[in-house]
């Protein structure tokens, strides 16, 4: 009797879990599914009432349109394109691919420079005893307390003064300042979790500080390093407000800026804009999925302790 009751309870529990799994998957993936689904349809299907659950006449035409936007847009071929059939493409759509490139370059540069700066600083703060160590740590952390929007005007003036307004370099500098406090904090926590005897032994063997960092600490802190790289890249890839003010032309505009210009445009071509959105989602999601283990262990190391 008890065993059947137990199996019933067990079955009830797994049924319950399956049900919650479905709700969870619907909540987390549903909105993205809708974005992807409507990026695969022609505009006429996208704007059909009522909307259908599965893509109708699915094709990659919208993505093809993104690749083909480099053809010069003239009055003629713009007029020929009919909004109702989904051939209409926003006038600045040709900026999409260059902005994708800008986003990649800026993101990679920020990730690499960030790890170079924050690893050396974190090593110094975590392991070397020196006057003003706490002051250095707090001044690094406190720089993130002021809301970004307060810093825009001075940053604009600063970048103009340095002659890097509307350049990728200016964005890289800004994003470094944005990401470095958090990655330094993560790395300090991780370095401190490594037994300090390793540091002492390596130093006594005559290894230089940079040598200890490179050969002992960076390899041991791999999860935190990968998490920091990811954090820096994703933050730069996703950032919107600074890029909105600090960039003007396609020389430096990143993907979020070009996409937001579609969204805020008068004539929205939903299917095309959704395809652009999918384009912006794919790289970060792939990175997140690939490095899932590192992100979870690296980002949360030390953070949860207190």
């Amino acid at each position, binding site marked *: 009797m008890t065993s059947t009751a137990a199996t019933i309870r067990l079955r009830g529990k797994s049924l319950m879990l399956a049900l919650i*799994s479905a709700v*969870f998957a619907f*909540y*987390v*993936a549903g*909105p*993205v599914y*809708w*974005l992807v689904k409507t990026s695969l349809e022609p505009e006429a299907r996208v*704007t059909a*009432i*009522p*909307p259908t659950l599965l893509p109708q006449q699915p094709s990659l035409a919208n993505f093809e349109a993104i690749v083909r936007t480099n053809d010069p847009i003239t009055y003629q071929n713009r007029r020929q394109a009919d909004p109702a059939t989904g051939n209409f493409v926003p006038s600045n759509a040709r900026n999409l691919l260059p902005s994708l490139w800008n986003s990649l370059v800026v993101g990679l540069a920020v990730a690499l420079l960030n790890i*170079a*700066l924050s690893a*050396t*600083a974190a090593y*110094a*703060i975590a392991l*070397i*005893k*020196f*006057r003003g160590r706490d002051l250095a740590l707090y001044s*690094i952390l406190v*720089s993130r*307390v*002021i*809301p970004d*929007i*307060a*810093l*825009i*005007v*001075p940053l604009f003036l*600063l970048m103009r003064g340095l002659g890097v307004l509307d350049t990728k370099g200016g964005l890289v*500098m800004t994003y470094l*300042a944005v990401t*470095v406090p958090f990655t330094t904090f993560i790395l300090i926590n991780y370095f401190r979790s490594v037994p300090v005897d390793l540091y*002492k032994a390596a*130093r006594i063997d005559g290894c230089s*500080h940079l040598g200890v960092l490179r050969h002992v600490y960076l390899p041991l802190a791999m999860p935190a390093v990968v998490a920091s790289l990811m954090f820096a890249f994703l933050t730069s890839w996703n950032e*919107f*407000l600074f890029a909105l003010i600090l960039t003007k032309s396609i020389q430096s505009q990143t*993907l*979020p800026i070009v*996409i*937001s210009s*579609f969204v*805020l445009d008068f004539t929205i071509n939903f299917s095309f804009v*959704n395809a652009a959105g999918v384009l912006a*989602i794919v790289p*970060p*999601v792939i990175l*997140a*999925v690939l490095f*899932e283990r590192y992100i*979870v262990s690296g*980002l949360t190391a030390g953070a*949860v*302790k207190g």
Partner: protein
Amino acid sequence: MTLVSPSASSEREVVAPGRLRFALRAPSHDERSALILLAPLLIVLAVVAAFPILYSFATSLFDVNLVRPMRQPFVWFDNYVQMLGETRIRIALWRTAVFTVITVAGTTLTALAVALFLNETFRGRRILAILLLVPWATPSVVNGLMWKWIYDSNYGVLNGLLSALGLIDHYKIWLADPDKTLYLIANAAIWKQMPLSAILLLVTMKSIPEDLYKAARVDGANVLQRFLHVTLPALRPGLMLVLVYETMISIRHFDLFMLLTQGGPGNASATLSWQIYVETFRSLHFGTGSALAYILAFITLILGALMIRLGWRREAR
């Protein structure tokens, strides 16, 4: 400042010398190494963080108006007084409070539910844990675009789904309804912010020793009692972190307001951060704009300090 023998004080603890001697002592080899290692980061932060922070605070004390660039008198805290005296700013403060409370509460509760769920062992758990990262990795601009499209009053799937299920009998205007718009934006914010909090809570849960649950079970505690008396107290540090972090980012949220409503309809979603944007970049009143930004910064600081203080004190008892 000539060469100091490298081994001299590298590992030796300096035993509390007087302040004067401390200041006069030449930096040891290790101290110089530390400064050299820190220098690149500190230089970048000094230029790109410290300078803008100080500059904008200074700006908040001047009457700077780009329409009238030649006369910019120093006005002490008049900008702050003026801004706090305006009704639209007080309403914006109230809206910010509402938005923050909804978003923080929604994020924390959803994240707690998700963490409890993913803490179970079952088939497919790993796939769902990876799926959880998708909202986290989604750029906020795409998040805005996505929800704008879902909420669309003509072709949006929210109307389509709800009317297919028979929950509404006619299509609704979602974002353009002043009574709903703040909640709908909060929903989009929660969707994106929930995963990181859930991961933090999940990691905290995993650190709870299994023995505690066994002991509680022996004592005859049911699921709810185990949650209330074992899980929740052990979760406090993680929960505190989530609450503070979510408050900090919700209170200053900007991107979704820009993309979804631009403060509208009317002023229904004009929160403090949106008013800062309007004051600075539309009215070009840099002085009052900076003052508003610093009001937001002070509120954030005080709130964060209070929360940490309260949470810490309770824990100590």
